[in-house]
């Protein structure tokens, strides 16, 4: 934990209060806080290097382009892509996941084909494929989850078949924090010729991603959950696949030659980046990756697991607290308090200055699987401390007193 002791100084927002209490931010799985270096990188572009990219012939335009493309290069290295040309900038993970389905779905999915996904998915991971399946008269197949809600290689095998054309699965569950054995799953999927699209929104902040080692066909994530700004996401795709895919958005910057009778488009990644991109956010994402690299995933994971275990230990001692994932692989704790609606609890946390998520976490399928209309989720990241967990625990006890015993 030693290397993370000074981290808090890098996040100005941690000096803020909420409802008169020091800010306890335990909602990083929704969006992470942004370090000063990210804020400064965006400001640098907006105050010193403002120009559109790939257009200006003047020096400033070139400098802006270099910053933007530099970020693409940093992203490629971050996930060990073979080339920067395999990195498509999108406005977020949702857009990246949709791009794959909307560009490929109609051409590779035919009537009777099967698409494998799971009930653990974020809506953005399976909804595009549900839509494609409905339109192409294909079948959406769900990997049966284990008793504790995990995707396993064995269960994946039970639904994989010669009819499987696409596999769309999460790398890390945003509710349970489980890491999917995605490498083995990809290998099996490839053995029947299926393509695999990985939702890595909750993986990229917490674990080292190596797309060549995974051999995934597509992998999507977003900047704002990994210390970066909102408005910037990443679609990684194998170049040979991106090359064959049709663009789904048309306009400036993505064209090659435009003619009355038809037009041609640039090579990847540019043919998927129509219009002026979110340049400042892309530059901010580079700063976020630099920051993560400086800390290192070993230290991040160690810190998260240490705090998670501390929290689980204290929360499980409180009678009536039901933790759905007493073992998980990242710093996500999913829980409820018996006989207290999560939204009532959320207002108590709010009053204590504690930010936690209450709701269905964009995973209505999994909420049905859990048989809970909604849950509470506390998610831990690099800037959290034992004091944050103590505040969570104190607020939990206070909420129980209020709703079960009428004691304020």
């Amino acid at each position, binding site marked *: 934990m030693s290397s993370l002791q000074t981290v808090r100084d890098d996040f100005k927002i941690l000096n803020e209060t909420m409802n*008169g209490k020091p800010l306890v931010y335990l909602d990083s799985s929704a969006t992470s806080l942004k370090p000063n270096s990210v804020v400064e990188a965006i400001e640098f572009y907006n105050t010193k290097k403002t120009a559109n990219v790939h257009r200006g012939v003047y020096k400033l335009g070139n400098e802006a382009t270099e910053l933007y493309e530099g970020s693409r290069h940093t992203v490629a290295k971050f996930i060990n892509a073979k080339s920067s040309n395999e990195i498509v900038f999108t406005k977020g993970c949702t857009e990246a996941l949709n791009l794959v389905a909307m560009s490929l779905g109609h051409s590779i999915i035919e009537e009777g084909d099967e698409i494998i996904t799971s009930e653990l998915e974020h809506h953005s991971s399976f909804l595009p494929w549900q839509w494609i399946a409905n339109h192409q008269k294909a079948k959406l197949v769900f990997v049966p989850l284990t008793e504790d809600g995990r995707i396993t290689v064995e269960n994946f095998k039970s639904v994989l078949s010669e009819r499987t054309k696409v596999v769309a699965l999460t790398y890390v569950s945003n509710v349970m924090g489980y890491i999917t054995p995605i490498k083995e799953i990809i290998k099996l999927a490839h053995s029947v010729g299926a393509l695999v699209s990985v939702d890595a929104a909750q993986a990229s902040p917490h674990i080292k991603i190596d797309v060549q080692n995974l051999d995934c066909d597509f992998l999507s994530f977003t900047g704002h959950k990994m210390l970066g700004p909102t408005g910037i996401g990443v679609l990684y795709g194998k170049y040979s696949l991106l090359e064959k895919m049709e663009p789904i958005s048309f306009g400036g910057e993505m064209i090659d030659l435009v003619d009355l009778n038809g037009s041609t488009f640039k090579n990847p990644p540019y043919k998927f980046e129509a219009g002026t991109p979110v340049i400042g956010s892309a530059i901010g994402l580079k700063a976020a990756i630099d920051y993560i690299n400086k800390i290192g995933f070993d230290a991040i994971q160690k810190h998260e697991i240490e705090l998670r275990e501390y929290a689980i230990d204290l929360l499980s001692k409180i009678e009536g607290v039901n933790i759905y994932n007493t073992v998980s692989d990242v710093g996500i704790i999913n829980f409820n308090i018996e006989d207290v609606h999560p*939204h*009532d609890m*959320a207002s108590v946390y709010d*009053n204590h200055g504690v930010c936690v998520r209450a709701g269905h976490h964009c995973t209505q399928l999994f909420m049905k699987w859990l048989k809970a*209309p909604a849950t509470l989720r506390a998610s831990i990241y690099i800037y959290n401390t034992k004091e944050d967990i103590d505040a969570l625990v104190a607020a939990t006890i206070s909420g129980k007193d209020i709703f079960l015993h009428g004691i304020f």
Partner: protein
Amino acid sequence: MEFSNLQSLYRQVIMDHYKNPRNKGIDKNNTEYHTVHLKNPTCGDDVTVAVKISNGVVEDIRHEGIGCSICCSSASVMSETLIEKSVEEANILTNNFYEIVKGEAPNEDLDMGDAISYAGVASFPARIKCATIPWKAFETAVLEINSQK
């Protein structure tokens, strides 16, 4: 300070309506009632309100659903506040309720009953929707009944 906000949100009268809801339960086969189902997809509050109107008077309101204490209690309070009022008056009371939860001073001339207790919601903007859903369902029911005429 720490507890005053929460205490005013979760007033005893609100918790009482939550634990002992009035006018709860809907007879789906009774055609004298017009039913409206509303939900808040972000939090899962899910309320059904059944309204019986005759001769311009709200004769009965029934409700059922699942949700947080603010939403469920508000359905109970809404039914008590609006039953036996004229439709016109019920609409005025409903609009006054929206003002109360936004933190506006209530119209003293109106008989809001227990609904006056929801002033504390204003300190928790994220919860305003919880409180208003049952009232919105009533409003919708009246609109739909009128458009059927």
